[in-house]
């Protein structure tokens, strides 16, 4: 059944992008509405290398990572000069710059894009749709592992400190500028890698696959699931990615539906479905606390705020 494998690969690629976006938006607190541009850059570099220079899939992967990395370093450096709202606008602009780039530069094949990207092979065996699905899942697992690891490091706690209060973070000695750039570069490297896999999976890349809309969809997935958490990024991608497949009629109104969901989420559950203060997570946490307090006698804490903030 090729259909399920194709859907799985697509949804998994979205999950990778959403988890990688979370490093910038969720951990570091920087607005980023241009992740699709880096995804596209990775895809285009891989496609061009494979088709024009006969570079193998396995060498295209590191090339796309490197491209994402360099582009992310540049964006990170730019981000330092911009206040939050201007950074958001700048990242929106990136999407349009990227499309012009893909359309106008001959290396990238113009508005026709690049097609007939050869199927990758491993030890003489050509990739099947199932192999792509498995490769995407493997890449998602690696992305989740990297993301969770970063969150457990000293670097990771500094990123979250920067998100909460940049000035206080600098006051305790955090290298704010360097860490912001690093967060962007890590995130866009992963997006570039996902792009390479996407190019070989689709066997064709066209400029309009990587527009602003896709960036918004990726951010919407993260916000639906819960910004700042890996589980939220994955679940949000699964829901929004699978929805057009599960409900056929939605696919004609995909953006309209996503927009409506986003508005409802922001109004009623701004932490996202599984974010740290969402109803689901709070209920779970309370249940756990109840279990604990029945075992240990609770004592009133004099350092905790009582009543409304």
């Amino acid at each position, binding site marked *: 059944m090729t259909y399920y494998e194709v859907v799985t690969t697509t949804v998994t690629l979205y999950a990778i992008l959403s988890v990688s976006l979370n490093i910038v938006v969720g951990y570091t607190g920087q607005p980023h509405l241009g992740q699709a541009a880096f995804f596209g850059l990775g895809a285009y570099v891989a496609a061009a290398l494979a088709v024009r220079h006969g570079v193998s899939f396995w060498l295209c992967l590191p090339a796309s990572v490197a491209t994402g990395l360099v582009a992310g370093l540049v964006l990170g450096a730019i981000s330092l000069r911009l206040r939050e709202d201007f950074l958001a606008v700048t990242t929106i602009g990136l999407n349009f710059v990227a499309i012009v780039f893909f359309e106008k530069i001959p290396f990238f094949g113009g508005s026709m894009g690049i097609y007939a990207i050869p199927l990758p092979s491993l030890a003489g065996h050509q990739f099947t749709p199932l192999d792509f699905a498995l490769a995407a899942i493997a890449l998602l697992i690696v992305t989740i592992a990297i993301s969770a690891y970063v969150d*457990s490091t000293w670097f990771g*706690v500094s990123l979250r400190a920067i998100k909460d209060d940049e*000035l206080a973070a600098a006051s305790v000695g955090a290298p704010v500028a360097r860490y912001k750039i690093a967060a962007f570069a890590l995130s866009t490297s992963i997006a570039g890698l996902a792009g390479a896999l996407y190019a070989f999976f689709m066997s064709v890349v066209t400029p309009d696959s990587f527009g602003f809309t896709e960036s918004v969809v990726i951010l919407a997935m993260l916000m639906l699931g819960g910004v700042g958490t890996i589980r939220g990024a994955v679940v949000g991608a699964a829901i929004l990615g699978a929805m057009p497949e599960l409900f056929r009629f939605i696919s004609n109104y995909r953006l309209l539906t996503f927009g409506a969901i986003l508005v409802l989420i922001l109004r009623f559950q701004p932490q996202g479905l599984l974010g740290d203060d969402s109803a689901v997570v709070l209920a779970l946490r309370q249940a756990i606390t109840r279990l604990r307090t029945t075992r240990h006698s609770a004592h009133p*804490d004099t350092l905790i705020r009582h009543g409304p903030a």
Partner: protein
Amino acid sequence: MALLEVDHVSLRFGGLYALTEVDLSVEDGALVAVIGPNGAGKTTLFNVIAGRFKPTAGDVRLNGRSIRSLGLRGVNVLGVARTFQIARPFGSLSVAQNVQAALAPHRDAHRSSLAPRWCDADARRRLAELLELTELASVADRRSGELNIGGLRRLEIARALAGDPTLLLLDEPAAGIGADGIRPLAELIRAIRKHGTTILLVEHYVGFALSLADKVVVLDEGRKLAEGDPEVVRRDPRVIAAYLGTDTVEAQ
């Protein structure tokens, strides 16, 4: 040579003189209090020392080295840590993570910031010490945004101490904590001092500041009005006129 020298520092925002030729020196191991009425420029002076504002004129030196244009991080890594008058916790992080975020930039240079936090035994010990000292151990896993003002003040101090600073800038640590909190806070500050940390304290509660300090500097309208022994400053008629005359009763 004094540990900290503020040398003829002026700071101007457009036409507003926030600080005018302020001189101040803090000897190694001392506890110096800066007092003055609201708007006197106390917090602004801290912001200049900590690297948030670059002085329009004058210099700030730490151990003889100019720190006037090093920025917040640059000043902090040289051993100057501060607390904020209005607490600025990393609100989504737990109390322990707040202190870890402050420990992170101060670990040994050979230890990678890409190492997991749990596998650094030294840092774990230091974290436990800091939480113990500031009596935050019982709420270590609570989100810092849930702390009340007393808890937040302690967290500010724990974070500032994380890098084992040579100079600690305390910005109104007693503000808002109520009469019950004053005595434990004074004990905490004395304990920090005993450890060898030099302290510069900005305080609105005069009685509290005078009881701790060995030198007092009085600011008024961005200028230094008086300086000296707490008892002498307390009796200085200019100081009484500017400030103490209206405030002593409330402060004691």
